[in-house]
């Protein structure tokens, strides 16, 4: 048991405070055993904290953080069921980016249209264009 109504400096510690203090000392002992007190103390140095701040606080992160409420709001709008297919699409597009591409004229375009994959892609693109147009119409009416 701890003494009741302990005085530390000008602060009087009542029974509840004493109980908290005992728990806190227990926690400190555990942190010390694990060597975490030393680690935390080392981490809280000017160099480490300054280095971390330099890494994390830049114009880009501050701009992004400033919009974090809007960004997280957008997350609610995402159709998560379509994410897998979107993922496939993104990796297909990324590999196309690294493939060599040739300039194509009108005749080349007409010949390409015989390729069933190109036709499927075109159908999809038209769908996307339609959705973009619909959304723009909404935004302009606002």
């Amino acid at each position: 048991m701890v003494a009741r109504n302990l005085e530390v400096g000008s602060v009087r510690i009542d029974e509840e405070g004493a109980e908290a203090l005992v728990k806190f000392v227990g926690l400190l002992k555990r942190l010390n055993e694990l060597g975490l007190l030393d680690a935390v103390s080392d981490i809280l140095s000017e160099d480490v904290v300054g280095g971390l701040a330099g890494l994390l606080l830049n114009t880009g992160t501050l701009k992004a953080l400033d919009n974090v409420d809007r960004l997280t709001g957008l997350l609610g709008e995402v159709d998560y069921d379509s994410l897998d297919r979107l993922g496939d699409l993104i990796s297909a597009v990324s590999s196309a980016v690294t493939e060599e591409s040739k300039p194509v004229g009108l005749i080349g375009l007409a010949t390409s249209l015989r390729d069933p994959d190109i036709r499927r892609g075109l159908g999809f693109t038209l769908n996307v264009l339609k959705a973009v147009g619909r959304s723009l119409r909404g935004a302009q009416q606002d």
Partner: protein
Amino acid sequence: MAEGGKVVIVGGGGGGAIAANLLAGKFDVTVIDRSEYHYFQPGNLFIAFQGKGPTLYRRRIADLLKPRVDFVRDEVASIDLDEREVVTASGRELNYDRLIIAAGVHLDYSALENHEALLNTFGDYYHTQEMAVKLHESLRGLKSGTFVIAVADPIYKCPPGPLKAAFLSRELLNRMGRSSSVRVVLAVPFPHAYPSKTVSDVVEPELEARGIEVRTIFTADQIDLEGRKIVSLEGEELKFDVATVVPPNEGPKIEIRPDAVRDGSGFLKIDKFTSQVEGYDDAFAIGDCTNAPTSKSGVTAHLQAETVAKRIMGMDARYTGRTNCPIILDGLGTFVISDYEHPPVPVRLSKFKRFMEDLFVAAYWSSIRNPGFWGPVFEAYFRATEPEVLERLGGW
């Protein structure tokens, strides 16, 4: 005895305490302040308009300074720059190798007739914590009518202060169910709600949305306490039931020799980059008491304190004139970000900036006591939000 020599610092407010703690141990540092406490002045707003307790926003100066700094509680009466001597009201004489004057502004409540009576009747959010408590009581007692927030001179510390008072008092009155029975009127000596048009464009729609009335080009000049009205220099009248007026700000009430180092309002003439007092390489002035052409703000005092501490330690450092004055309203915040080269850049109101401001407030006491630890963190923030960079990106 530290090797560097003797540094005397006049004032243990934002600028003085930071400079002292940065130089502690490297020089023999003495801070002289007439006050036992260091006050976190933005706290006055929270006391007056949110009913917060004053003790949250003050600390004993002796506890804020590192153990190796000497604290002398006394009023500085005179400074002789040629003799390198500081004399206090109780007759102490201190000599120095380097001097830092960080004595803040003198708030002149005697310039406008009846201003002192107005202060004592309703309280105020610039004067002291006691007066902030009184203003809170005045607003609680105002069941219906008009609360006027006015300004007596375009140069005063914390330019967004009156704006913050307008937003926060509106919030308080609304919470007390007086959204329609009490009007809040903000009267400013500028053509817009804030000196900078860019900043005004950000805040004016918010003032309007909250029904806060703005009277522009209204420089409070006469206070008629009986008739409950304020008359402006421009000849207009404003009726009130409760009012507060930011008084003219002047340089500190200290006799400084030679007098030529002061401008007409008593502010110390300094090199705006190095903070060196004009004509003296062993004397510096920082914070609100100087004539530097930038906002009088805690951020300015802090950055100038770092600059001067570095220079005294033999490094080359220059203050860019950077400001970061916060404007806060219910749940949102923005900062007035500018420097000597760039007028305020567009900075939109956001929840994140309000959160950042709450973080700055929470870190205040720690940043005064341990400026060396916080230095690199603030530096990263200031670099990330340099006016030049933000301007190029169209703002923040």
